[in-house]
């Protein structure tokens, strides 16, 4: 979670709020923040660290591991209408890549601002070409985009 905290300012500039969730109590969250995370990120964790000791939130999001009694690494991007636009679930030993999450947020924000008239091709980064789906583009994507454009 310190990797997300480290990019929090950037997320705030994009209008993104962060909530982290685990089965630990909010008291343990405080201990983890005070004793370890503050050593990784200046000022510690700036966002809500939610506690889900009964696993009810985890069940609702499909990330509850009932054998271990823990929550898997589920990451959800929720839009201003409260709709889930993206989700990723990893088993515990592999960490997320926050840069990819930020890229997806930027892509979804562009799509939303375009009113759904634009789409972002594979590997899209801010400033790259977008696609404008419509009758003229059918069978013609090759003219404007190819895999070598994905960095």
């Amino acid at each position, binding site marked *: 979670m310190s990797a997300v905290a480290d990019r929090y300012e950037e997320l705030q500039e994009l209008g993104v709020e962060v909530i982290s969730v685990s089965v630990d109590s909010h008291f343990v969250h405080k201990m983890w923040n005070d004793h370890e995370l503050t050593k990784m990120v200046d000022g510690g964790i700036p966002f809500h660290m939610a506690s889900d000791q009964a696993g009810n939130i985890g069940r609702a999001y499909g990330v509850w591991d009932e054998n271990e009694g823990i929550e898997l690494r589920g990451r*959800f991007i929720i839009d201003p*209408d409260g*709709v889930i636009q993206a989700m990723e679930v990893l088993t515990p030993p592999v960490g997320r890549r926050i840069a990819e999450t930020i890229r997806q947020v930027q892509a979804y924000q562009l799509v939303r601002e375009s009113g759904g008239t634009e789409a972002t091709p594979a590997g899209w980064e801010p400033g790259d070409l977008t696609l404008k789906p419509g009758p003229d583009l059918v069978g013609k994507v090759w003219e404007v985009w190819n895999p070598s454009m994905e960095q």
Partner: protein
Amino acid sequence: MTATVGQKAPDFTAPSYYQGTFTPVKLSDFAGKWVLLCFYPGDFTFV
């Protein structure tokens, strides 16, 4: 109902540690904003 892309995110209220305070957090309080919701296996784990 399990969370699915393109569908409403299940709302919840939970106890939370927030900037030195114990302040409950409610997902729907953030309506109108983008939210990044991150689950993880546990505090004091290694990844």
